[in-house]
């Protein structure tokens, strides 16, 4: 193997070049362009009118809708990621048991992953329709509500509903990661624990949870990134309305850039979001020094 050591050193670099070049091409220019647009005054047709320094950012931070959307993004991300992990841990533990119909159960749990977020959002929007939606029909039939509830017509109910939809579509991916983690847990330590008389709750807290820890962290990081950037659910179900009451940063960005014709400000929102993601990643690497070395 030492005979062509130089060739071996060069080979992996050559092998990663095509994918690296393609990814860089599709990311580098748009990124540069966003930085450029964010410090220029840009017309709705993309014509650069002139350098304006940080005016776009100043406009943003003066816009109460932006500030509200930013805070709502925090709740959105916390709600969806937190809910997802809370649901996924027990589901993964159950799916890791040996029981009749486990294959079918796994398929059912994974199913939301196969459906486009857009389609999921469309179906739920129809399901939450005031008069004709099946959610109200079912709740009324069960006697849980008296008249139709206007779920999506007020931000106070629309936003929690969309968080629940967000949780539903994030569970499959998260369960997948946890199942992978559980499959690497050696079963004999449980045998040993049982012989020592450890109860199920004790086993979960002292054995399963610590062993799942790296997988939970991984799932939280990836989900935070995905959920923070998640666009279709809110865009399709409420378009950020009613009266801007359910905007998160991505929907606000899209509306600014492509509906209200303010590409400069939209680019500034992009950069703000990138900065937030960047800080989050740094924070994660700080808290997780071991994980960082392995990655």
């Amino acid at each position, binding site marked *: 193997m030492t005979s062509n050591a130089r060739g071996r050193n060069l080979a992996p670099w050559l092998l990663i070049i095509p994918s690296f070049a393609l990814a860089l091409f599709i990311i580098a220019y748009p990124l540069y362009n966003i930085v450029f647009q964010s410090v220029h005054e840009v017309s709705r047709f993309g014509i650069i009118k002139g350098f304006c320094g940080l005016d776009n950012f100043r406009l943003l931070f003066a816009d109460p809708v932006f500030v509200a959307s930013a805070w709502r993004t925090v709740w959105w991300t916390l709600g969806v990621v937190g809910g997802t992990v809370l649901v996924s841990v027990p589901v993964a533990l159950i799916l890791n048991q040996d029981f009749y119909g486990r294959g079918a159960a796994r398929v059912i749990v*994974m199913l939301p992953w196969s459906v*486009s977020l857009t389609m999921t959002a469309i179906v739920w929007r129809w*399901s939450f329709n005031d*008069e004709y939606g099946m959610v109200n029909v079912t709740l009324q039939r069960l006697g849980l509500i008296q008249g139709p509830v206007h779920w999506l017509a007020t931000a106070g109910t629309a936003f929690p509903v969309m968080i629940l939809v967000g949780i539903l579509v994030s569970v499959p991916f998260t369960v997948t990661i946890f199942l992978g983690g559980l499959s690497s847990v050696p079963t004999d330590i449980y045998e040993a624990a049982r012989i020592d008389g450890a109860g199920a709750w004790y086993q979960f807290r002292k054995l399963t949870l610590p062993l799942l820890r790296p997988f939970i962290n991984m799932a939280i990081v990836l989900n935070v990134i995905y959920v923070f950037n998640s666009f279709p659910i809110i865009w399709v179900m409420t378009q950020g309305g009613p009266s801007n009451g359910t905007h998160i940063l991505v929907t606000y960005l899209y509306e600014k850039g492509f509906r209200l014709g303010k590409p400069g400000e939209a680019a500034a929102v992009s950069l703000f979001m990138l900065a937030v993601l960047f800080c989050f990643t740094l924070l994660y690497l700080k808290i997780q020094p071991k994980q960082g070395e392995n990655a």
Partner: protein
Amino acid sequence: MRIERRKLRRSVICWLALAPLAVVVLFPFAVMFLTAVKPADEVFVYPAHWLPSTFRWANFADMWQAVKFGVALRNSLVVSVSATVLAIAVSIPAAYAMARYRFSGKGPYRQFLLVTQMLSPILLVIGLFRLAAMIHVGGGNMVDKHISVIVAYGAFNIAFAVWMMSSYFATIPPDLEESAWLEGCGRARAVLKVFLPLAVPAMVVTAIFTFINGWNEFAVVYTLIRSDANKTLTVQITDLVAGRYTVEWHQVMAATLLATLPVSVLFAWLQRYLVKGLALGAVK
């Protein structure tokens, strides 16, 4: 016999615990199907009913015409298949490098891929649009062209494809190739003759998931594709709903069902490979 009884009891408990989630997961599928086959005048009656009085299969034929489903279906296929081919073609060598070589670029490249995951299309959408508008080929620019969507999808799927394939490639024992070298086979030939045949399943599985990603993507097509003739299914169907006051829900549900079901079946069949592939890659 005792053990069987215990397993049966455990099965009942497990299914009971999963029941609420299962109901919520299957709910939209039930809504899709039952709305899609309802006669139009039963969709908008108050109080509404779950079950239709008759199954009106003609809804699907009507929808096909009204939604221009065929055109959108072809566009979705073209875009997803091409993007998959592109992503897999550039990812195979990279995945091989990540699985088989120790080199100083490995860590940084891994980090780079993570960053590409973070820069989701929606964050870059403003810049992507300018990029497409800037590149001039022949008479016009790349806005409203499938090729721009294909290249973007291809690029954004690299991280996933490399991740999945390298974790599978790593499970193929390297001794097989090494013994082929010893028998006088060159490294490239050994890869071609010994490694590739064993790696095909991993590539196929990864390709199918990349295809599903492309099939389901929304933001890029929504931004880059302008004309109805070039729209994919996700955008075409969203246009029936977004910002409209009257929506033909039975047709919309028929369309979502047709667009969703084939992919869901494919996914259900292959999901167990995801558990392995992603988990292996996740904490490596």
